[in-house]
């Protein structure tokens, strides 16, 4: 079994030692970074530190050196974002820092996505996401989207104030097996239930898993509405998405 000392990059070692507490997460990250090449670890550090200039440069460098785009995405960008998500969940960092990390990842993905797309590489899964009708708040939803993309999902973002028929149309158009709905207002929470009812009425409920979240939403509320799952935060959203789609954690 790999050990912390097997990781070449000192910053990665320090991040794991200082911020990770759960044995399964420590073990997973040590195993990941102990086997990745040093340049991938540097890319991960650029993501963790929210350094978009470095992430852009290092990703281009890696591609020029012949590293496969999929390896850069999995070992560098997604690897880094995994640590970001844990630090956010544990309140070591907050939304501004996560936004900066996601911006860095996006700078790297700008080089990676066209290559993967041209090669026909499939994402982990496709998720349709939106804030429900009558609600214009999107920071929570956007954080979930950043983390989902950071975990390799393809996300169709419908934005805010999304009507049930818009959710249905997007799920059908993209053949998405998973839908995520967000609400910040207690007045708009019931629109999650109305959207689920619309899927039932359209005969599509069995074709799609539905997850919900948002500050006032609870597991109990999600169960009452007939959702398939509830995510308390962005990292929980990713775990739930993987669980609902049967993807290995």
């Amino acid at each position, binding site marked *: 079994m790999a050990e912390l000392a097997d990781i070449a990059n000192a910053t990665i070692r320090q991040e794991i030692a200082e911020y990770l507490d759960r044995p399964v997460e420590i073990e997973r990250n040590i195993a990941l970074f102990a086997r990745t090449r040093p340049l991938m670890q540097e890319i991960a550090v650029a993501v963790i530190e*929210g350094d978009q200039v470095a992430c852009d440069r290092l990703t281009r460098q890696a591609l020029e050196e012949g590293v496969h785009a999929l390896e850069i995405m999995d070992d560098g960008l997604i690897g880094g974002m995994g640590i970001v998500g844990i630090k956010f969940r544990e*309140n070591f960092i*907050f*939304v*501004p*820092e996560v*936004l*900066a990390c996601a*911006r860095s990842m996006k700078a790297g993905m700008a080089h990676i996505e066209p290559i993967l797309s041209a090669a026909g590489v499939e994402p982990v899964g496709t998720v349709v996401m939106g804030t429900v009708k*009558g*609600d*214009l*708040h*999107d*920071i929570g939803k*956007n954080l979930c989207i950043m983390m989902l993309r950071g975990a390799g999902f393809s996300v169709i973002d419908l*934005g*805010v*104030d999304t009507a049930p028929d818009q959710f249905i149309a997007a799920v059908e158009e993209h053949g998405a097996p998973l839908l995520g709905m967000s609400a910040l*207002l*207690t*007045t*708009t*929470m*019931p629109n999650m239930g109305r959207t689920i009812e619309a899927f039932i009425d359209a005969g599509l409920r069995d074709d799609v898993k539905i997850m919900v979240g948002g*500050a*006032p*939403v*609870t597991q*109990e*509320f999600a169960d009452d509405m007939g959702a398939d799952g509830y995510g308390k935060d962005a990292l929980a959203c990713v775990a739930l998405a993987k669980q609902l789609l049967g993807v290995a954690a």
Partner: protein
Amino acid sequence: MTASAPRPMTGRQRILAALRREPVDRTPVCNPTSVATVELMDLVDAPFPDANRNPELMARLAATGYTELGFDSVMPVFSIIQESSALGCKIQWEQKDNWPTVRMREPIWRDADDVRVPNDFLTHPDTRCVLDAIGILRRELGEEVAIIGKTMGPWSLGYHCFGVETFLLMSLDDPGRTKLCLDRLKEATIRFGLAQIEAGADALTLPDHATGDLVSGEYYERFLKDLHAEFAERLPIPLILHICGRTVDRMGYIAETGMAAFHFDSKNTPDESMEAVRDRIALVGNINNPETLYARDPEAVRAEVFKNLAAGVQLVGPECAIPLQTAIENLVEIPRAVREWHASHAHPHAG
């Protein structure tokens, strides 16, 4: 705690004494944010969205907090959009069953140089409406009940005018420019606050959503603590700071601002919150909205009221603007439970 009970107080006296942390005859029931509901709108024929834009309807709906619910205060500002509308933000006014919201995806500013409080800020229909409604409430309710106004803090206005993500990223990329934005935006907070005082407000809620759900406690100290202290100096009536979400990590800083009270969310327990502020600021709160007031029954409401009273929270009320579909029976349980608790506890609350 005091040895002898003060003589019976009016709601206004009770609220103001508690905000000064002076003795009260019983713990006041306070709503620093909206208690408007669809039921109350129907009862007095003052529905949203009109009740957010017409001063007569705004005052009529606000008065129900006292006349129908039995709270010690009234709050005529049911949303957080009045100043942002006057600053030029686009508003989605919605219908009776939803709050109006700023269209933050259509930001009006990009940089500190764009920040400008318009000359007509206080005569804009959506700020004027609040001033007129406060005047109506003062005339109609007299000295019986405390009238609480609301002036938004610069951090919340920053979300509205720049967009949440843009504003938060700016705070990380360029703290100096962010502080400049806040310094320029504070004039909106002060001008609207002073105008409400002139119109007759007894106290002001100052929402400034530097919540633990978004930013760290260190952020609050770095960007907002001094500004909030300045508000406490320049707005000469009691200020009630409102921040949703988890805030116990910044309550120590908040307690040092000189504000009269902090309106806290149920994500923070009454006991840990009282411990965090250590009697340097009054606390208002913190009956849970979505799980208790909206979804449960009077028994559950009573239990939360008792929990706050037992912890020594100085003013009891909902944690934030209540869901519009909240049942009146749950809301009237708050003052009922407060009276019941005091009837069975010998010593009056010291506020």
